[in-house]
């Protein structure tokens, strides 16, 4: 378990991270979300022991990162922002160096490197010097470095930054695959990514935690949550609006767009869990409207994100 207790970091008079606390258990993938400069990287740097906190503590599997630094670090795999690697080394030599630092003896080292190369789809470039590699490969080399010792805790700062959609997909698969045995913290500002990968999300703004919940639960905070969107293929928009507005449980309805005869309407319930769909459907059939599409909105993370971080 990673336990972060009231972590704070001040640079001069500027507070970068302010009283951040949370716990991550094995099996969890915690998404760390926030606008740029919200304090995501600073928090991760304190958890990994790169910079000391001004106050508070981070405990990694029972070891305090400051007072029992070495045992704590042994358990962590860390992918820093921008995936720094030594450009003048070959991929194989670099990973062999990391394996050596991680305490693998001569006998285990090569096997471990080969294994990790394969896991990260790097075997084809293992002899290449890192500075000849594309950004996507470098990112994967640094990722390989983070998992080479099969750490219990993985801390990934923007792991898919700069990757193309296919590579993003591969990295997400790797992360999900490993998550059963590890506690993973990853930061991102891509909301889809968090939704696709994380079991829990913490949103941080101006150094403080402003939300800590599952992605699904976060979505319910959206004003769109529970709204019904439908496209009608004909009829008068105005009369339709007045009809649905009269339905029990409907707060308001508005026309989003019209296209020839067809138009698109969104109907908002007066409470998020009000079951308005049934009533709307019966209104539709009673009045012989022809629906082209109809669906219930789950809520949109970007809207929630904007609302709580702005």
């Amino acid at each position, binding site marked *: 378990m990673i336990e972060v207790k009231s972590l704070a970091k001040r640079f001069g008079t500027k507070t970068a991270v302010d009283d951040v606390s949370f716990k991550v258990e094995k099996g969890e993938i915690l998404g760390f979300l926030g606008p740029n400069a919200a304090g995501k990287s600073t928090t991760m740097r304190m958890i990994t022991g790169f910079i000391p906190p001004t106050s508070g503590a981070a405990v990694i599997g029972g070891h305090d990162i400051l007072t029992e630094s070495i045992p704590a670090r042994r358990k962590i795999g860390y992918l820093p922002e921008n995936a*720094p690697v030594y450009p*003048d080394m070959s991929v194989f030599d670099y990973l062999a160096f990391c394996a050596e630092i991680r305490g693998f003896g001569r006998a285990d080292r090569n096997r471990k490197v080969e294994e990790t190369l394969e896991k990260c789809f790097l075997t084809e470039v293992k002899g290449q010097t890192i500075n000849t590699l594309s950004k996507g490969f470098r990112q994967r080399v640094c990722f390989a*470095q983070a998992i080479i010792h099969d750490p219990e805790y993985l801390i990934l700062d923007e792991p898919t930054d700069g990757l193309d959609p296919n590579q993003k997909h591969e990295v997400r698969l790797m992360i999900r695959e490993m998550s059963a045995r590890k506690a993973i913290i990853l930061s991102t500002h891509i909301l889809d990514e968090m939704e696709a990968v994380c079991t829990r999300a913490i949103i941080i703004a101006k150094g403080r935690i402003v939300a800590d919940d599952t992605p699904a639960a976060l979505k319910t905070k959206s004003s769109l949550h529970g709204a019904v969107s439908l496209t009608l293929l004909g009829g008068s928009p105005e009369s339709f609006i007045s009809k649905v507005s009269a339905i029990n449980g409907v707060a308001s309805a508005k026309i989003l767009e019209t296209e020839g005869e067809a138009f698109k309407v969104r109907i908002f319930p007066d409470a998020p869990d009000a079951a308005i769909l049934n009533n709307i459907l019966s209104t539709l059939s009673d009045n012989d409207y022809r629906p082209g599409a109809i669906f219930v909105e789950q809520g949109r993370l970007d809207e929630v994100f904007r609302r709580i971080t702005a």
Partner: protein
Amino acid sequence: MRTTDSMTNILAIMKREFFGYFGSAVAYVFIVIFLMLLGFFTFYISNFFEMGQADLQGFFQWHPWIFMFLIPAVAMRLWAEERRMGTIELILTFPVTVWEAILGKFLAAWAFIGIALVLTFPMVITAAYLGNPDLGATFCSYVGSLLMAGAFLSVGIMTSSLTRSQVVSFIIAIVICLFFILAGFPPVIRALSGWAPAWLVDLVSSLSFLTHFMSIQRGVLDLRDVFYYASVIFFMLFINSVVIQNRRTA
């Protein structure tokens, strides 16, 4: 347990840095320039042949001056490069202590300079062929030169930790090294002794790399000289560790 771990970590970092020199052009450029400059000064400025003496005084006397320019160039990348590339964030979150990282880097660069120094052996052969140099004194001079190189290097690695720019590190290191040389440079001592009290002159000159190097060159490996270089190295590496531990970000 902890000490063997430390050794492994230091060795791993040392190996990486050491082969890093040979992986880039730095090593070859350094060795070639070092040998050429030494040869040039020894033969053309000290007039090794014309002196008619088979001793290596004219060879060793140039070491401090050449080290002053070349060793900061060897040292400047050690931390500045890590800071610029961001790899410092990796090395300092690996399960290694700051001291292990510093020692690994320092020893790698020192070993590298040691190799360059060993490659000057044709000088000794030449002198031995021409006459009968004092081999004991020559050996002492090499040990002294290596110790002095370590002291220069510790200044360079310390200034390298101060900045992300290798050029800035290089220049600051040269200035500090120049001070350490000039404090014992005879013209400076003479100028100083004109007005300063004797204890001050002694204090200043005893701070100099040059004074202790000259004393070792006479063929006596005095423990005080060894201790002097060791304490300069320790002091500089200590500053280095303080700087690294107190940096705000990368």
